[in-house]
């Protein structure tokens, strides 16, 4: 087709958005190259390096007691931080999206704060509160309780870093759903809990899961914040990302990449889940 001199016939006009084929191919190739170089290659490198010394070395690194204890601590952290933030996210979204009150925007802005804080600072603030020189330090040491440089600190720092994930997803989803369905349920005689289980929860389930997936992925992979509050005690206060660092700094590259490959598999799974859930939410919302 030649370029239109007289834009009278509609087919010509409709092709306005379509760039000439060479331009399309060229730009697509460039974009794919950029994505490949910047994003895909690092992921491939993790797996290639992990298996650089063969299956046996890989399995040995993954099955070592230190790796297993890091897996355990990471799962424990995720198991506490994610449910806490999920509960918080649901409460916050309910209060913020179903009611009108003064200072609502301030509350929403405050919830987003942890996104803007460097992970290193997220760790530092808990050291300032619970550390030996911190606000509660003397009291804690009198009672022989250790928070920072121990497991509770790791869980707290992870909770801080992943704080807004579920709340943010739910707030934007529930904002668009309004309050009509819940009000109808109440008018028809449902109790508060009936309304929640039969109306609200089914409406938000995919968005909720989506938030939980994002929250879990971040909680599992958090490095900076956890690194500051962890005592870096092998087998005790090492999460998986910290274990990767230790192995790497010991020049045990294949071991570091083997452990990193476990985290990468989880990352890829979370991406796939995320795509599925995005698809589901789009299907159900008009």
């Amino acid at each position, binding site marked *: 087709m030649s370029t239109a001199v007289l*834009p009278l016939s509609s087919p010509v*006009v409709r092709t*306005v*958005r379509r*760039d000439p084929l060479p331009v399309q191919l060229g*730009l*697509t190739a*460039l*974009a794919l190259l*950029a*994505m490949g170089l*910047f*994003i895909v290659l*690092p*992921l491939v*490198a*993790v797996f290639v*390096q992990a298996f650089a010394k063969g299956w046996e070395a890989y399995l040995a690194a993954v099955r070592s007691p230190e790796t297993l204890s890091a897996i355990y601590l990471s799962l424990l952290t995720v198991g506490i931080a994610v449910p806490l933030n999920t509960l*918080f996210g649901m409460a*916050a979204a*309910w*209060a913020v999206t*179903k*009611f*009108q*009150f003064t200072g609502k925007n301030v*509350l929403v802005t405050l*919830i*987003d704060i*942890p*996104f*803007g*804080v*460097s*992970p*290193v*600072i997220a760790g*530092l603030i808990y050291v300032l509160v619970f550390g030996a*020189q911190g606000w509660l330090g003397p009291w804690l040491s009198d009672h022989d309780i250790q928070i920072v440089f121990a497991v509770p600190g790791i869980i*707290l720092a992870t909770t*801080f870093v992943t*704080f807004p994930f579920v709340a943010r997803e739910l707030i934007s989803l529930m904002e668009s759903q309004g309050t009509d369905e819940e*009000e109808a349920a*109440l*008018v028809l005689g449902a109790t*508060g809990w009936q309304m929640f289980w039969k109306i609200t929860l089914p409406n938000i389930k995919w968005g909720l899961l989506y938030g939980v997936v994002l929250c879990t*992925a971040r909680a599992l*992979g958090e*490095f900076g914040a956890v*690194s500051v509050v962890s005592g870096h005690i092998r087998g005790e206060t090492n999460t998986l*990302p910290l274990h*990767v660092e230790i192995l*790497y700094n010991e020049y045990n590259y294949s071991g570091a*990449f083997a452990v*990193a490959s476990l*985290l*990468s598999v989880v*990352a890829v799974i979370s*991406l796939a889940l*995320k795509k599925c859930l995005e698809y589901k939410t789009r299907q159900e919302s008009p």
Partner: protein
Amino acid sequence: MQASFKRPSILPGFWPTFAYTSIYLVLIVLVPLSAIFFRTATSSWDHIWTVVTSPQVVASYRLSFGASIVAGLISVAVGFLVAWVLVRYEFPGKALVDALVDLPFALPTAVAGIALTSLYAENGWIGRYLAPLGIKVAFTPLGVIVALTFIGLPFVIRSVQPVLADADQELEEAASSLGATRWQIFTKVIFPLVRPALLTGFALAFARALGEYGSVIFIAGNLPMKTEITPLLIVTKLEQYDYAGATAIAAVLLITSFILLLGINVLQRRTRKFMEPA
């Protein structure tokens, strides 16, 4: 008083959820965060000033801000290209590429850090082709830029994609029927539409890059005065039990981030206003 604070509603559960939200927010986020400022306030102004303006710290600001700006600009250019291709063209595997855009969000930063270092080291897959050209990436400021670009790219792509997808087709058709060339349509119609989104993407990438730690420290090499980023100095001071120093630097970084976030909020509100009347 209660009535003026909250508009009446028949829905239950406001007070329990509101109270829980507020208490949890105060306990987990606000009180610990305020420790930074209380702590800074307890040391003398002179001491704080000496810490935050010492040559090593100033060198780290230069690196952190400089690398974050450059990485943000690269992210804008590359991110716009990728968003454009993902929104406007069809090709096999498009859904997969779209899913992979979020990889830097999902991949733990420490994993990204060691992977990028292995790629760009002198004997790495990419580094070995750059070394003969005299380009060193790993353990130089260039490496910091590479890591921050990896982190920043999805912010730009995800900011631009929806705006580009929503851009009104009729505007382009009108421009075309009035005799505009493709390039004119791009520069005069499309680009002004996505400019606020590009700016938002840049600001988000920049804000994240300033505080980024895990993906950078491996590839940076952390040479004093040369490749030390500001968050690393906070960690270094902490490891030396210099709490006052660490806190002072953290306060500078935190205030900068908050100003940035405020700017992003204003930008996003403007973008939304811009999009709504259409």
